[in-house]
């Protein structure tokens, strides 16, 4: 950091620090690499292998072939895309409306509104009343059940309000003098100016939808509506999809059980790559998002 004097103790500390951080980095990365290498391995070699993997054992795409030929995976993918896109758009719209109202300095009901929303971060009805509500208002077993009940994450709304508050007042005032109403100010001025904050919020909501699974367990029965994560749970954890996942490809019993070893790894990669692909593009917003969120109500 700074020009500190390099004594022997400091050199020892630095070495220790670099080694430790490298180890932490490897530990964070390795499980994903293991899965990646395993997914490209020859099934026969992989099933005989034990211990860490440092490269694919042989090279084979048979696992991917089986996974990508499974119609359930494609349905899950499309459903997840629907939940991510429609869900995120509605999330951001509603969050922006709430954040805008909360960021108005002269609004008389601002304080009650803030208390009403923040209170729900600390106390709520919990699992059962929420479940019964979704059932009673007819959202059960519909796609909307995964979107409507979570329209606003209060934490994200607070982050967004902080972003809106940072927009210079002069911009809004001059727009107002030019005859702009609040909708114009929000959509034409504040959202474009605060786009870094908006990007963070989009990222948080989209990743949330991509990774969500529990509400689908609660609210969906129709397998045709299942998001990808729910199929993943069957394949990875419940171990129940072995039969119908592999059967779509013609092969004998032995090959099937060998390929099954691969399928887990291939589905993990297929389901994770899209998120990791957008990751480098979003990385510069992480710090901003986390920092804004840390500000007090």
């Amino acid at each position, binding site marked *: 950091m700074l020009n500190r004097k390099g004594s022997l103790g400091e050199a020892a500390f630095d070495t220790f620090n670099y080694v430790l951080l490298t180890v932490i980095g490897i530990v964070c990365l390795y499980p994903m690499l293991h899965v990646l290498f395993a997914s490209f391995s020859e099934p026969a070699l992989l099933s005989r292998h034990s211990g860490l993997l440092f490269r694919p054992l042989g090279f084979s795409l048979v696992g991917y072939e089986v996974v990508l030929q499974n119609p359930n995976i494609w349905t899950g993918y499309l459903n997840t895309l629907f939940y991510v896109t429609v869900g995120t758009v509605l999330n951001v719209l509603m969050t922006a409306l709430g954040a805008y*109202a909360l960021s108005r300095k002269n609004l008389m009901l601002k304080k009650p509104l803030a208390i009403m*929303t923040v209170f729900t971060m600390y106390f709520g*009805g919990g699992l059962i009343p929420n479940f019964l509500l979704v059932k009673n208002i007819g959202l059960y077993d519909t796609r909307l059940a995964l979107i409507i009940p979570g329209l606003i994450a209060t934490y994200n709304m607070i982050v967004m309000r902080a972003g809106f508050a940072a927009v210079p007042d002069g911009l809004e005032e001059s727009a107002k003098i030019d005859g702009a109403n609040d909708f114009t100010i929000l959509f034409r001025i504040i959202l474009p100016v605060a786009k870094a904050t908006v990007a963070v919020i989009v990222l948080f909501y989209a990743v949330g939808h991509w990774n969500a699974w529990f509400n689908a367990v609660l609210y969906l029965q129709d397998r045709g509506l299942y998001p990808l994560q729910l199929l993943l*749970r069957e394949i990875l954890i419940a171990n129940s999809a072995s039969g119908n996942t592999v059967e779509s490809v013609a092969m004998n019993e032995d090959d099937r059980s060998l390929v099954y070893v691969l399928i887990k790894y291939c589905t993990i990669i297929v389901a994770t790559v899209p998120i990791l692909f957008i990751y480098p593009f979003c990385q510069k917003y*992480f710090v901003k998002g986390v920092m804004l969120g840390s500000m007090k109500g």
Partner: protein
Amino acid sequence: MELAKRQSTATRNSFLGRLRKDVFTNKYVYLMALPVIAYYVIFHYVPIGGLVIAFQNFNAFKGIFGSEWVGWMHYTDFWNSPYAFRVVRNTLLINIYQILFAFPAPILLALLLNEVRGRMFTRTIQTVSYMPHFISLVVICGIIVDFSQSEGVINDIIAFFGGERSNLLMQSDLFRTIFVSSGIWQEMGWGSIIYLAALSTVDPHLYEASSIDGAGRWRQLLHITIPALIPTITILLIMRVGHIMSEGFEKIILLYNPLTYETADVISSYVYRRGIQEANYSFGAAVGLFNSTINFIILIAVNNFSRKYLKESLW
């Protein structure tokens, strides 16, 4: 107090008058707030009202208004069941372990990264360590399941050092260790961002001045770096403690199984099994209400304590 009261009665009419005027001048803002208010009322406050079924024998056909009232019966049932002690103990233990081990991990990582001078190196480690945060819980748990199997990687390592192979997730005495350590692995990097950001605001002159005064790196760490983090640590700790009764529930139901219920079953997973899977709605709501009430009380207590003695608080 008295004066304020009298004034507020005196101005009640003009308060309504002012409100009407405010709604008129800000009509578009209120129009925007309307769906937001509706959302909060329907999806947050109606369920809070729905908690009354905790004191009923809720029957889905009769509804909240037709079901019979049973007072505290479900609470008595819960406390008399053999599971009450188990789930409360597990909930507290898992969270206490998390606060002891998982909470400090990102702080330590941030301190280590802060001592590194090479920017490239820091960035690489950060990028790699954030990554597990973005992988879905289902995939994370899938990897944990795969690695813990008796033929899995961790057992390969155990066997290499001469240990016995076994399915680690089937052993109840290992559940908490697996749960907490995998949580550290997944969230340590992400959690460190906020501390690193807090450290980046420290005035570099402080370090210069202290090194002129003869302070080594250890002293600088103790007297400059760590004090700079204290406010952030306090706020995050309050927030964490406020969730002491509810953290980690999704991961638990992905990883536990009847063999590990003894150490893994927490209040919220118990609510899920009894309430949703067995459709004992009233019982589930009662245990859930107990859980969130304790949570709320702890949060308020910790926040007040912190406001009084540490001068930091959430509100």
